[in-house]
Each structure stands twice: as C-alpha cells, then as structure tokens.
C-alpha cells in the first residue's frame, strides 16, 4: 500500500478518482503522485481500496455536514475514521457546507425527519454559521487521526440571511476555527461569477498561507448560472487564478478533479504540466 511522501518538498499533483484513472496512470506514468478518493465511494465500494496499490490516497469527504445543524451519525464518523486510519491520508478534505438539515412540514407543529441530501450545499454566510462550524469541528476533530481541512463551496444562488461574501466567510472560518483550507479554485471562480464579484480581488481576502490543497476542474454556463463541471477542462482563467494564488500559497497538493473519461488524456497531461510549471515558478 502506497502512502504520501512529502520529502521532495514540491507540491504533489493528483487526480480525483474516476472510472478511467488507472488507465490514465498506466498510459501516462509519472504525472500523478496521488489519487483523491471520496470517502463515500470507498464506503459504497470497499474494493476501490485497491487503488492504493498504485498510488497514495488523499481522502475527500462530503458527509460531515460541517456547517450544518444535524450532525453525521456515529456510524458515519466511525467509517470515516476507519478509512482515514487505513489509507493513512495526510488530511481529510471536507466541504465547508451542509448535507443534512432539519426536516420541515407544512403543518407547523409537526416534527419531521431530517432532510438528508446527496450533495453538499453552501451554508448561510454569517457569523452564526461560523460559530456552528467551530462547534462541529470541536466535536469532529477528536474522532480522526488526520486533520480536517475545509473546502470552499460553490455558490449558485443567494443564501438568505447571509451577512458577508464567500471569501470573507471562509477567511473567518479559518481564523476562528484555526483550520487549514482546501481551496477549490473552480468553486471560487463559480461563486465569484454568480455573485458578480471580481475573483482576482476576492481571492486576496483568503488566508492563502493556510491552503494545504487546491482543486481544479471545469465549469459551464447553463440557464444563466455557472455550474461546477468535472467533465470539462478548466478554462485558461482558472490557471491565471492559480498563478495568482501560487504567489502566496505553498500547497502540499493540487488535485485535478477530472473524474470522467470524457477528457482526452493529452488534455489532462497538458493541464497537469501547466499546473506543475505554475507551482514550480512561484
């Protein structure tokens, strides 16, 4: 089983796990240092653990609901803990989001079961939500052998009751919770476009020195909203933003979230090379 090695000091480059990843690594040796594996995929299909015979694994997670008010079940946190220990992941990248919430009923006084989603949602961007993240992290952190780092969410619509923008929110969470960051540049750019702010200015509000891992993926515009899309290549502007971030950040890892076989290998190779060159220059 392969485990992470940071002794070379450079930023490691990885790919998010997807159907074609082993074929890509076989045909393009030397480009990928690690595989980012969603905990939920491992839980659903334990056989995927065998990828660690090929490359180290960084664990990604969408189950902690770290900005939510409904905690994950003991069974879920136990399973994350087991995978964290087994994979020897250097950290657990979790979404700064919620995936469960109180259920609601049309009848005011009636209790309903929580709503459990399959996709994370950006939380209210408020001090109340920051406090909630702090409370949740204090109970989650002792359960895992690896540190939790938090990933900025993409914002597709205004979140009622918000009192700040996404960059300020992430910065406040990092500061008040003393937590490192997984900077998803695609999420950041999507949020900036959808909320009509300048990404290159907003990103300077982030504590970039706390960025441990970076995500890159594609995006697409549909119905007037820009959406996250792991099946299309990152646009050139994403690499410009990476270059800007790399002037201040020293990430230990950069993951290309190209999960689907729709991208030709030469495109993935050229993007890995481009990212490696940007990070090496900085």
């Amino acid at each position, binding site marked *: 089983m392969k485990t992470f090695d940071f002794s070379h000091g450079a930023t490691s480059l990885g790919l998010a796990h997807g159907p074609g990843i082993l074929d890509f690594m076989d045909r393009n040796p030397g480009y990928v240092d690690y595989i980012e594996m969603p905990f939920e995929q491992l839980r659903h299909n334990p056989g995927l653990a065998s990828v660690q015979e090929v490359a180290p694994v960084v664990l990604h997670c969408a189950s902690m609901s770290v900005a939510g008010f409904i905690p994950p079940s003991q069974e879920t946190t136990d399973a994350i803990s087991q995978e964290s220990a087994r994979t020897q992941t250097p950290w657990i990248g979790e979404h700064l989001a919620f995936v469960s919430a109180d259920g609601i009923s049309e009848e005011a006084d009636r209790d309903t079961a929580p709503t459990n989603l399959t996709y994370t949602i950006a939380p209210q961007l*408020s001090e109340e939500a920051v406090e909630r993240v702090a409370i949740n992290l204090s109970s989650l952190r002792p359960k895992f052998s690896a540190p939790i780092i938090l990933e900025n969410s993409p914002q597709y*619509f205004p979140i*009622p009751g918000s009192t700040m923008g996404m960059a300020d929110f992430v910065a406040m969470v990092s500061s008040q919770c003393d937590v490192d960051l997984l900077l998803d540049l695609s999420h950041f750019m999507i949020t900036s476009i959808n909320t009509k702010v300048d990404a290159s200015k907003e990103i300077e509000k982030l504590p970039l020195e706390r960025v441990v891992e970076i995500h890159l993926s594609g995006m697409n515009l549909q119905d007037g909203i820009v959406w996250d899309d792991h099946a299309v290549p990152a646009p050139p502007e994403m690499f410009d933003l990476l270059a800007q971030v790399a002037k201040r950040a020293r990430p230990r890892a950069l993951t290309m979230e190209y999960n689907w076989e729709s991208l030709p290998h030469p495109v993935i190779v050229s993007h890995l090379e481009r990212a490696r060159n940007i990070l090496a220059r900085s």
Partner: protein
Amino acid sequence: MNARNVHAVIAAGVHHPTLLSKWQMDSALLRSKGIAPETIDLPALRKFAGLTLKVRHNGLRPDLPLTFRLMGLAELGIEVFSEYATHSDATGHRYGKTSAERTRDLIAFLEGWLDLKQRNHSLLWDMIRHEEALAQIRRSTNEVSSAAADNPQPAQSPLRASTVPRICGQVILHRMQCDPKEVKSALFKRPVRLDLIPEESHFYCYWRRGDADEVHILDLDEFGFYSLQFIDGATSVAELSRRMGGDKRPSQVFKAGLRQLARIGILDLHSALKAEIA
C-alpha cells in the same frame, strides 16, 4: 433569519422541488418558516435541484458519454434534470439502483418531456437511445439467440412464402431524426455547430450476431428496418409481406430485400423452413 431555518428550507426545496412551486405561489408558506420571500431565489434553487440530480446520475456517464456531452454543449443538462427532479418528486418516482435502471427511467421521462420539434431536443432523444442501445446490447450476452449465428446465408437461399425468417442474435431498432455519427463528430469540433447537423431520417439497427463480441451498427433502408420490426420467428414471409402492405404472394423485390438481410447474416432463412406452398 437564523441559519438553521434557512438550511432547512433550502434542503427541503432541493429534496422536494414541488415545494418550490408551492412557495412561489404562496409566499406566506415561506414566511411561516422564518424566511423572507424576497431573499430566496426559488427558480435558481430549482435549477440547483437539477444539478444535484445530474450528479446522482453521473454513474450513467460511462454508458452515455456523448449524451452527457451533448446536454452540456446544448445547455440542456440543468433544465433536463431539474424537470426530472420535479417530475419525480410529484409522481413519487424512486430512482433505480443500477445504471441500466436509471438510464431506462431517464429515457422514459424524456420520451414524455422532450419537444421533438426543438432541434436540440430531438438530437438528445436520438443520442440517448443510440448509446443506450449499444450499452444494452453489450450487456445482454446471455440473452441472444444462437440460430445460425456464425453462418451467414448464401445469396441465393431458397426463399418461399412459407419460410419463417428468424433474426440471428439480438437486434435493437431505432428510427432517428439525425445520424448519431454526425452528432458525435459535431460534438468534438470547434466551434460546436449542432444546428449544422442534417435533419434526416435514419433507420438504425444495433445487432450482435449470436454470442459474438462485436456489435454492428447498421444504417438500414426503410424496408430492412420495418422487416426486422415484424420478424418474430413465428411469422411467415407471406404474412410479413401482407403486414407490410404487400400481397400474400411476396414479390421478387420483397424477397430480394430479405435475402439481402440474410446475406449480411442478420436473418436466418434456412432453419425455420416450413412446408412449401404452391
């Protein structure tokens, strides 16, 4: 507005998109849950519900890569899945456990929802059936007939009115409003010009002979397409001729068409031969 209430309302709207329409029609419902109606973008939330459902269908991508690419480039993906999410919530539809079930259900939804007069809709309808047919026929290795599977017929088979033709192997037939090969090509050109794809009928036959691995995609003529639709291993050539609008005494042209299919190997005109008629 406290965060807990806001999260509860957003999650409920994404999970049950039919609620979004109710809230849109009666904003007092939102107020009763502690949300100022003017602060929430319900149409965007509905689209987001589409994104979450699209992601839940990512497991279909290996079988339907061009369909997903087309939905992205034609800017249809979010609309399709937000409508599907709302439809599923309204009807109590539960998503299938396997990719095959989910694909089948998605196609069933699209059949009712797509407006085939819209060019991008008809392209999507053709492409998803094209890729689903290929996936289905590749999956069904154990279901194919072995009749004369590896034995294409000679050109001059004795063909009688009483002959009962049988299909060798498995076929899936789809009438298309475009050529899916043209769509595939267009999806990888820059700039993408879906409007330049010719609108024309194609009669596609997906065929695997016996237990062979290879899947053939045949672009048939109208006669071949409808012949294969009627051939069931029990109907005689005479009856086929009648059902296709001809005489009970099959014409030479009709028989030549069947012989052509036999020459390809898709029809067996020998093994089910019945007593000759005068």
